[in-house]
């Protein structure tokens, strides 16, 4: 699907300025959420009718990190004093509107995108022409988390451990070991999570740049001139030598494909052999992304960070610029106007 006439030289997206820009755009992306407390679980004397809270949540953040904000709204507006004393936020957990469990250890943007592609494949899908983002409706339960189904405790600490596990897994995928992650001091490892918690781009990337590869300009011929690096905070994103940590030098790009209502597919994505997103999708989903029908409408599309991503996007570049804070490129596949 060559919807873009003029092909960009790969290097156009791989200059230090655009790397910093796309990382910033990924970081600042938000999704609308509508969080409604299960009315059956509201404490006595709650202010009913107001138990719904709307917010724009960062894509790279996690549901347990939203609890303090939601809690303070509920205490201010919905619960009375006695009610505020009864509720225990260690027991709070989320459910989808249709009763499905929310993978609360997934990044919020991923929860939103998997919901969006599920809608694309359901008969009741609203017309895809409406482009206004629709809030994802979540039910907040105040008690009895189904820990066996959630698999992990619904706490910020368990979420942090899961996040660290994902970062290490991504590190292993890239380099065949986790030396970059384990080489970080404890305070730096914690700093990555704190960067998400505080939604502080510079704090996060000051550390993440030590473990994330950087795309080197790929255009042959011109060698990249030694980049003039101003000592600003943004420049910390790309101050390392490009060869050792080049995005194209990784063994594999950490990437997963999410299909509507499952399954999730993960495999090695060596950027030499699986160069583009189109290569990746055709290899794993040939029925949805067939090679032999360029003249017909595409059957499916791919979202990365909520953005419809062209098939010629390079996997190495996606891994360096549009991965989530946990290092993973999440590709959510939806079906075109079913």
């Amino acid at each position, binding site marked *: 699907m060559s919807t873009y006439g003029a092909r960009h030289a790969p290097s156009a997206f791989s200059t230090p300025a655009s790397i910093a820009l796309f990382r910033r755009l990924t970081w600042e992306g938000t999704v609308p959420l509508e969080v409604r407390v299960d009315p059956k679980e509201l404490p006595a004397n709650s202010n009913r009718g107001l138990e719904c809270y709307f917010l724009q949540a960062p894509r790279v953040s996690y549901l347990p990190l939203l609890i303090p904000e939601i809690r303070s709204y509920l205490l201010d507006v919905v619960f009375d004093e006695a009610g505020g004393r009864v509720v225990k936020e260690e027991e709070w957990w989320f459910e989808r509107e249709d009763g499905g469990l929310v*993978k609360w*250890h997934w990044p919020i943007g991923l929860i939103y995108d998997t919901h969006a592609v599920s809608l694309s*494949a359901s008969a009741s899908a609203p017309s895809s022409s409406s482009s206004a983002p629709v809030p994802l409706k979540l039910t907040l339960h105040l008690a009895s988390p189904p820990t066996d189904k959630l*698999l*992990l405790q619904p706490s910020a600490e368990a979420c942090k*451990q*899961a996040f*660290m*596990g*994902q970062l*290490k*897994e991504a*590190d*292993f*995928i890239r380099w065949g*070991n*986790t030396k970059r992650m*384990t080489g970080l001091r404890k305070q730096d*490892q914690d700093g990555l999570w704190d960067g998400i918690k505080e939604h502080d781009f510079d704090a996060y990337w000051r550390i993440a740049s030590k473990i994330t590869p950087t795309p080197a300009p790929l255009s042959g011929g011109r060698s990249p001139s030694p980049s003039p690096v101003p000592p600003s905070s943004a420049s910390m994103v790309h101050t390392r030598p490009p060869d050792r940590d080049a995005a194209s030098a990784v063994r*594999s790009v950490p990437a*997963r494909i999410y*299909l*509507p*209502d*499952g*399954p*999730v*597919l*993960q*495999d*090695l994505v060596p950027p030499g052999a699986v160069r583009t997103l189109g290569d990746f999708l055709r290899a794993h*989903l040939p*029925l*949805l992304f067939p090679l032999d029908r360029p003249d*017909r*409408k*595409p*059957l*499916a599309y791919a979202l990365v960070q909520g953005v419809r991503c062209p098939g010629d996007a390079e996997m190495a570049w996606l891994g360096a610029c549009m991965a989530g804070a946990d290092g993973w490129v999440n590709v959510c596949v939806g*079906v*075109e*106007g*079913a």
Partner: protein
Amino acid sequence: MTAASPDTRAIPSSWTNADGGKEALEALETYKKKDPSKVVVRFRAIGNAPIMRQNFYKITASNRFQAVIQFLRKELGWKAGDPLYTYINMAFSPAPDDTVSNLFKSFQTDGHLIVNYSTTAAWG
């Protein structure tokens, strides 16, 4: 909402993606089918964790890693609440909802998925 009569809304079928939509949904059904194949999982004890008499098992690839953890707990006779930490390749803890199949494809060593287990946190 008043539905327009189907006749007045008919547009040439080549304009719509009805066939494509059906084809896409059929493709999704195909990809939803569970992989019945099995992969070899090899368990390795770390530190003071008890060693298993048999340490490799064939496990259905479509299982979640959580099923592997539960299987291991059962084999070790662990009670609920007894600490058990599991790792792949002595490097990281996978998400419990990831499938054995995905982990095997990405991290297998000589046809085995190596799962290390420990009673204390070993690799964070």
